[in-house]
C-alpha cells in the first residue's frame, strides 16, 4: 500500500514538474478525487455551520465566559477592596480602642484625684470644725466660769454690804450722822 502511494506521488510529481506547480497541484487534487465545486460547497457549508455555531454556541459561551470573568474580576476587586477596608477598619478600631483606653485611664486618674482631693478637703473641714467646736466649747466654759465667779463675787459683795449696812445702822449715832452730813454738804457745795 505504502509503495503504491509513493509510486502515485512520484508519478504526480514527475507530471507536475513537467507542467508547472499550479497544474501539478490540480492534477494532484484530481488524482485524489478532490473536485473544486465540492470543495467550494464544503467551504460554504462549513462557513454556514461555523456561523450557526458561532451565533448560537460560541458567541453566548464567550459572552457567558466574559461575564463570568468580569464577575470573578469584580469579586476579586471587591474582595481586595473589602480586605483593604477591613484592614483600615481594624486599624481605625485599634486606634479608637487605644484612644478610648487612654481616655478611660485619664478619666480614672482624674476621678481618683478628685476623690482624693474631696477626701482631703472633707478631712480638713472636719478637723477645722472639730477645732472650732473645741474652741467654742472652751470659750463657753471660760465664759461660764467667769460668769459664775462674777455672780459669786457679786453675791459676796452684796452680803458684805448688807452686813455693813446693818452694822452701821446699829452703830452710827446721831452725832456721827450729823458730822457725816456736814461733810457731805461741804462736798456738795463745791461741786
Amino acid at each position, binding site marked *: 500500500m505504502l509503495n503504491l502511494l509513493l509510486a502515485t506521488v512520484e508519478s504526480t510529481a514527475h507530471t507536475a514538474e513537467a507542467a508547472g506547480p499550479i497544474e501539478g497541484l490540480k492534477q494532484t487534487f484530481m488524482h485524489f478525487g478532490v473536485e473544486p465545486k465540492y470543495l467550494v460547497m464544503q467551504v460554504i457549508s462549513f462557513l454556514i455551520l461555523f456561523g450557526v455555531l458561532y451565533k448560537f454556541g460560541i458567541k453566548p459561551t464567550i459572552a457567558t465566559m466574559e461575564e463570568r470573568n468580569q464577575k470573578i474580576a469584580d469579586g476579586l476587586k471587591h474582595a481586595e477592596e473589602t480586605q483593604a477596608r477591613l484592614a483600615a477598619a481594624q486599624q481605625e478600631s485599634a486606634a479608637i480602642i487605644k484612644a478610648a483606653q487612654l481616655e478611660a485611664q485619664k478619666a480614672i486618674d482624674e476621678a481618683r484625684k478628685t476623690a482624693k482631693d474631696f477626701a482631703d478637703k472633707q478631712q480638713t473641714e472636719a478637723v477645722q470644725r472639730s477645732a472650732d467646736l473645741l474652741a467654742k466649747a472652751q470659750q463657753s466654759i471660760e465664759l461660764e466660769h467667769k460668769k459664775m465667779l462674777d455672780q459669786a463675787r*457679786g453675791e459676796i*459683795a*452684796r452680803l*458684805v*454690804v448688807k452686813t*455693813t*449696812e446693818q452694822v*452701821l*445702822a446699829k452703830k*452710827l449715832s*446721831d452725832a*456721827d*450722822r*450729823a458730822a*457725816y*452730813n*456736814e461733810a*457731805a*454738804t*461741804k*462736798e*456738795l*457745795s*463745791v*461741786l
Partner: protein
Amino acid sequence: MAADKQTKLLAKQLFKLSVVDGVVSPEQVAGVLGWVEQRSPRRPVALLKAYHHRIAIELAKSRAEVEHAGPVTDAALKLIEGAMSQRYKRVVTASAKPNPSLLAGLRVRVGSDVYETSVAGQLAKLSV
C-alpha cells in the same frame, strides 16, 4: 390721747411764754391757762397735758429735794441751795426729806440729776 406735732409745738410756745428770767411765773401760767380756757384751741386736753409736763419738769429743775439720814441743819440746806443755784444758774429751793436707808449722808435730786454722798450709795458702789 397723745398730742400731735402741732399740739406739742403750741405747748412748747405756751411754756416759753410762762417762763420769765428762767423762772416759771405764776402770773404767766395763769394767763396761759386763761387763754386756753377762753380760746379753746384744738385738742385742749392733750395741749394741757403737754404744757403741764413741761412746767413740771421746769419746776423740778428749780427744786432740790434733799434726802438725808440723821439731822440736817437749815444752814446746810441754804448752802446746798446756793451751790445748786450757782450750778444751774437759777434760783433753786431746797426741801429736806428724811430717808433712814441712806444710813448717813445726803442725796440731792434736782430735776433728773441726782447727787449722792450717802453711806448707802458708797456701799452700793462697792457691791457693783
